[in-house]
């Protein structure tokens, strides 16, 4: 088997050109799901909210129990009609079919990210423990400040390694966007490769690009972890 290096080179640049879109989808998904996931985790760790807990555990099970590609297909086929219905009901001057598929991609990935990130944060919150919260209240902090200043930073630093894995998983997940014709890394190279049937070269390049991105993310998280190492309770 011989590889077409010229094609590999051209698809490398093609793929590199699509990296920003992949990162954009990842970043927007994280922006939407990190805060929501954290709020859900906090709500679920309180004593109250048995009903809330049930609802969210069903949600988490549903997300965990279905392949991501199935979620993509379900949401992508259902959501436009649903949106159209809503828009017509509300009488908004808005064309559903003008909505970019990137928007749907972000929505779909947020839907699943919120579920697994909230589980990650729940573990983090449990690692911090109630005494830190009480000490913050006793020092005069409001419940909100106690969470933002004391609890959240510790919960997040406790789960940084897991978060790193989650972010990498999300990046790799975005490759499934080709199913809804979004031109991110996998999509563009796949189309180019199908034109001259150099699939092997194309897919190797895609793999290499993802490895590079994920290594960079890991490196970033290593730096973060080193920064917060001192906070960690050693005893």
């Amino acid at each position, binding site marked *: 088997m011989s590889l077409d290096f010229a094609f590999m080179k051209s698809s490398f640049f093609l793929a590199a050109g699509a990296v920003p879109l992949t990162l954009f989808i990842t970043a927007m998904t994280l922006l939407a799901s990190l805060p929501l996931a954290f709020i859900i985790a906090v709500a679920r760790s309180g004593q109250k909210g048995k009903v809330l807990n049930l609802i969210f555990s069903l949600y988490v099970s549903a997300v965990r129990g279905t392949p991501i590609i199935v979620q993509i297909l379900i949401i992508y086929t259902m959501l436009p009609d649903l949106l159209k219905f809503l828009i017509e009901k509300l009488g908004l001057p808005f064309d559903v079919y003008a909505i970019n598929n990137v928007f749907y991609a972000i929505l779909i990935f947020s839907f699943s990210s919120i579920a697994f990130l909230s589980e990650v944060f729940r573990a983090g919150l449990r690692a911090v423990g109630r005494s830190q919260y009480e*000490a913050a*209240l006793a*020092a005069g*902090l409001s419940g909100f400040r106690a969470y933002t200043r004391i609890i959240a930073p510790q919960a997040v630093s406790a789960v940084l390694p897991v978060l790193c894995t989650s972010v990498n998983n999300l990046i790799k997940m975005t490759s499934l966007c080709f199913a809804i014709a979004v031109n991110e890394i996998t999509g563009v190279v796949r189309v180019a490769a199908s034109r001259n049937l150099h699939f092997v070269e194309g897919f190797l390049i895609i793999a290499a690009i993802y490895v590079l991105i994920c290594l960079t993310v890991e490196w970033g998280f290593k730096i973060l972890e080193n920064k917060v190492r*001192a906070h*960690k*309770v050693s005893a």
Partner: protein
Amino acid sequence: MLELSGVGKSFGKNEILRDVNLKVAAGDVIAILGPSGSGKTTLLRCINFLEIADQGTMVLEDRTIQLPRAKKSEVAFVRQKTSFVFQNYNLFNNKTALENVTEGLIYGRKIPAKTAKEIGRKALEKVGMADRSDFYPSQLSGGQQQRVGIARAIAGNPDVILFDEPTSALDPELIGEVLSIMKKLAQEGTTMIVVTHEMSFAQSVATKAIFMDGGVILEEGEPHEFFVRPRHERTKQFLRSILYEMEYTI
């Protein structure tokens, strides 16, 4: 200055505190003694609203507060005017020693960061921890952590400081450094309520000793009376058992 009356608290069916009355005047150092499970910690926690009492009122400065129905603003007021030193220090693990002290000043008492830092440094100096300002709790010994805990408690200049067995998690050789700081604070007129098993501290520093058993205050008195001539049989038993333990450890 601080007066509790009729404080009661149950956890489920268990009555933990029953009709507890306590009067604290400025400059008082009140030592609370009593066997394990007698409700000492619960009482302190009820004062600071870490636990909500089922009955009772608190008078603090010019305010009268119904403990079971305290409003948010009243809880905030009490937490401004009191502070808590925990048995397990409970320093904020993600904050340096100095930040541990300033956190409550800046975010609880709305003191500007610059002023808070000055106050924080002074407080750390007072407990002999000025040279450890930038250390995280995980980098400090138990005794050092508790000294920072005390700095955090005095920095806001509260009316009363609540100590819950501040030395009982410490190795014996580290107890002295914490007790001597508490003694110094007492001599300066700091008002304190101290749950402790350190009999010599209670005897030499406290202005009043209280014995709790089964959720009630069984006996209270000035230390020289309390320790020399306890009236209640349970108090006698308790003091004997503690003294025996002390001799035993020597």
